[in-house]
């Protein structure tokens, strides 16, 4: 704005004179280099402060301070990051560069992150907190920061990593499908921290157990282990000592009802652990959802499908399950109809499911063919449920509606018809207002974002 003289500030950056106000600088980044310069007593004289940096990129940084927006300039992301780091305005750049709040129904594919070597991701995890992405590929773990720039790659001793979970800010718990034990790595230093194995001195059958799923909680890490002898259980592991503190739900067998949980979720609200497993066969899906109380190690609630009685829809067993921990809701997606089953975690009973369907034709009626029958992935993020079947990606979003009891859920395709030809979606996860998708045998992790900028394509 129009401002008084005393507030004005002259800068000579690489020979070019810039004039701004100290309030512009102080209000946005009080701890930055610029703020420190502007508060020195000599700064308000007639002699401009000299900064030996590139003036053109500085004008972008200065406009960022003035408008809180990143003017779309010719500079690369890395150049801007480096320069913002130099001037100490990285937090401002981050908020200007981050995507707008994810509206999954309007997301579009913005980029694909492909690690340099062994680019097929075997597992990945995204975090909402600092919006970083950890990709496990070919025994390595690559870390990508909030701007999706490659931060570091750590080589682990494992031949392949099939499950990965973030246990501290910089530490990962990883499991492998080809080697036993749960292993901990500090990714910032690349240091191996230790391993935990499931052994039982009284039971010789329990050895060489491999990790199927991992999840983190304030009470420790929960990991499901599966032995070669078909014994399986969920272990609670102390994060500081890496010792097993509890064995939960040990069972043996390989049938649908007692196979190892391949998905674990921790619900902070009530301290419950939810595990699920789905087997996909020629005759459709079968599986279970089981909820444990880790304190008593008891099963609080369980359901298996196809089950008896009215608890399941005939021939329409669950295909995948996810938990919205903020809303305390379990979502399951039905293998045949594609309908969404919703169950309130606080009111679980014999048949807690409320089924929602949408007449809008979704992937489930599309011509996916027999190849991908029953193969589906569901993930929820900020009240939106993303479901994938075969190569198609769709989202269930709730709309404020009148009439049918408040909430209406609408199913929309996120992707285009040609997107699903890239391959079967193996994993979907969201974090930092981005949706990450990996496909079987395909290199890289797709990044989907919603955007306020339209991608105008010129045809002249």
């Amino acid at each position, binding site marked *: 704005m*129009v401002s008084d003289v005393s507030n004005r500030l002259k800068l000579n950056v690489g020979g070019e004179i810039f004039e701004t106000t100290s309030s*512009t600088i102080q209000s946005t980044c009080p701890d930055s280099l610029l703020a420190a310069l502007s508060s020195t007593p000599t700064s308000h004289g007639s002699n401009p402060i000299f900064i030996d940096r590139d003036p053109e990129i500085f*004008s972008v940084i200065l406009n960022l301070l003035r408008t809180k927006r990143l003017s*779309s300039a010719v500079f690369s992301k890395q150049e801007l990051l480096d320069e913002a780091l130099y001037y100490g305005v990285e937090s401002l750049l981050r908020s200007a560069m981050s995507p707008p709040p994810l509206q999954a129904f309007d997301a*579009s594919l913005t980029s694909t992150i492909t690690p340099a070597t062994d680019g097929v991701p075997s597992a990945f995890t995204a975090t909402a907190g600092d919006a970083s992405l950890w990709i496990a590929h070919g025994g390595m773990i690559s870390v990508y920061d909030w701007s999706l720039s490659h931060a570091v790659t750590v080589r682990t001793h494992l031949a392949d990593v099939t499950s990965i979970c973030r246990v501290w800010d910089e530490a990962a718990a990883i499991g492998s499908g080809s080697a036993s034990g749960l292993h901990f790595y500090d990714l910032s230093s690349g240091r191996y921290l230790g391993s935990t194995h499931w052994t039982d001195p009284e039971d010789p059958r329990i050895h060489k157990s491999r990790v199927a799923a991992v999840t983190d909680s304030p009470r420790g890490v929960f990991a499901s282990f599966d032995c070669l002898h078909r014994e399986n259980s969920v272990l609670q592991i102390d994060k500081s000592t890496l010792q097993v503190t509890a064995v939960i739900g040990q069972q043996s067998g390989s049938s649908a009802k007692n196979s190892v949980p391949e998905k674990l979720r921790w619900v902070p609200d009530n301290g419950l652990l939810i595990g699920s497993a789905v087997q996909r066969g020629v005759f459709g899906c079968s599986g279970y959802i089981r909820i444990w109380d880790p304190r008593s190690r008891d099963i609080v609630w369980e359901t298996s499908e196809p089950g008896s009685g009215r608890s399941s829809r005939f021939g329409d067993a669950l295909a995948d399950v996810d938990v919205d921990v903020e809303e305390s809701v379990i979502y399951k997606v039905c293998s045949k109809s594609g309908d969404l089953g919703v169950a309130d975690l606080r009111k679980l009973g014999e048949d807690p499911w409320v089924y929602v369907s949408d007449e*809008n034709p979704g992937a489930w009626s599309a011509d996916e063919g027999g190849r991908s029958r029953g193969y589906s992935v569901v993930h929820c993020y900020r009240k939106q449920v993303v479901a994938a079947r075969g190569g198609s990606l769709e989202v269930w979003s709730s*709309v404020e509606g009148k009439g049918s009891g408040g909430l209406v859920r609408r199913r929309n395709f996120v992707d285009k018809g040609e997107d699903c030809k890239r391959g079967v979606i193996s994993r979907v996860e969201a974090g930092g207002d981005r949706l990450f998708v990996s496909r079987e045998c395909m290199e890289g992790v797709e990044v989907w974002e919603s955007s*306020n900028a*339209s991608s105008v394509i010129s045809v*002249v």
Partner: protein
Amino acid sequence: MNLPASAPESNVVSINVGGRIFQTTKQTLTLAGTDSLLSQLATESTRFVDRDPGLFSVLLYILRTGNLPARSTSFDIRDLIEESRYYGIEPFLIDSLSNPSQFEAFDLRKSVILPLNGRDSPSTIAPTSNGGGGLHVAHGSKITSFDWSLRRKSTVLTNFSAVDSLLEISPGVLAAGATDFPGLQIIDLDNGGFVRTTLNWENVATTTTSTVQAVGSSSEFLFASFESSRRNSNSVMVYDLSTLLPLFEMDRCDNYGVGGGDSVIPSNKLRWIRSCNLLMVSGSHASPSGVSGHVRFWDVRSRDMVWEIKERGDCFSDVTVSENLSAVFKVGVASGEVYYTDLRSLGGKGWVCLGEEKKRSLDERKGVGCRIESYGNHVFCSKGNGIELWSEVITGLVGNASRDVLEERVFRKNSFAADSGENKITGLAFGGNRMFVTRKDQQFIEVWQSPSRGV
């Protein structure tokens, strides 16, 4: 600071923008309007603005000349928009880029396409109410809105599984309806698609729900054509545009009898004719006995029907009215030809065929799915994958003054947009200096404009 001294009576003012000195006149600055930051600057004693000088130079150029400088291509239009908003001169930027007076019907080319996310192709499109060339697109249960620069968009989710009628009634407020979902919803775009209210047909029994067939507006009224769920009655409801309170209904048709002569055809197009204070209401319907339809003109103040055209023979597949040409245009469903009738002599001559009026069998369906819209002094009619542009040629040779000109009014046709392999056109809309085209099974919007005036 050491700004160049200027004589008190001088009109020349110097402005320091981010360290660079600009000189201009007070007149130029006051052009920007009294509310803008720039005209305030003209009265200030120290003129310093802590903004980017490069962007300011472009905006000053626009203020001086009304045109966008060629060097502006090195800036992103989004930055220019943000900057023009800061200075309060966005209307100048809009004017220099997308002014309806720059619409050049004979020089339209496909300049950009706007991709839509997801797999639904557009069901209906509506230009922004300010005429600046923005667009709202309904696709599936979503509505995506593009601003006048077409560079910024936002998407909201609706209750509808597909939107069939869409109209912006005031900036950022949409009226949306569907033929398979009851009620006309007033959607607040600035509030993330919040449904402000749902308008219903008040006069039917509360047990039945009615669906929206068409929506239209004048400067005072909002019109909505409703059909009852049993499809045996329909009506046009009139609401106050600002309060959205129902005022009255008109054009009501009921058919409770069995197999009566006229089936009840709901109106699927509502057009306000400002110069005559009339509402044009039209609808057509295909039945085994052929296509029949109606075009009615209502005087909203007296609530009287002024004129009605009943269509039985070559019924229309679409109708439009052009105020500039003072004529109603239709495209015949059987012949596929464009007809007009003069607004100034309603009921006088009936339809005059503009195309080749051959004897055609009424079994033909050449005009099915054709759309007709008017913009400026032109009428656009989509046929298959192409567009016919009809424009009036003023010759001065009125009537039979010359052997060459037999018609009373001379309309001539140009065809374009029919590239082979293109899909059938499903929608046409106009705003600013642009024509928007949607095609069957395509998840994007084509933007046609004159190449010298593109964004």
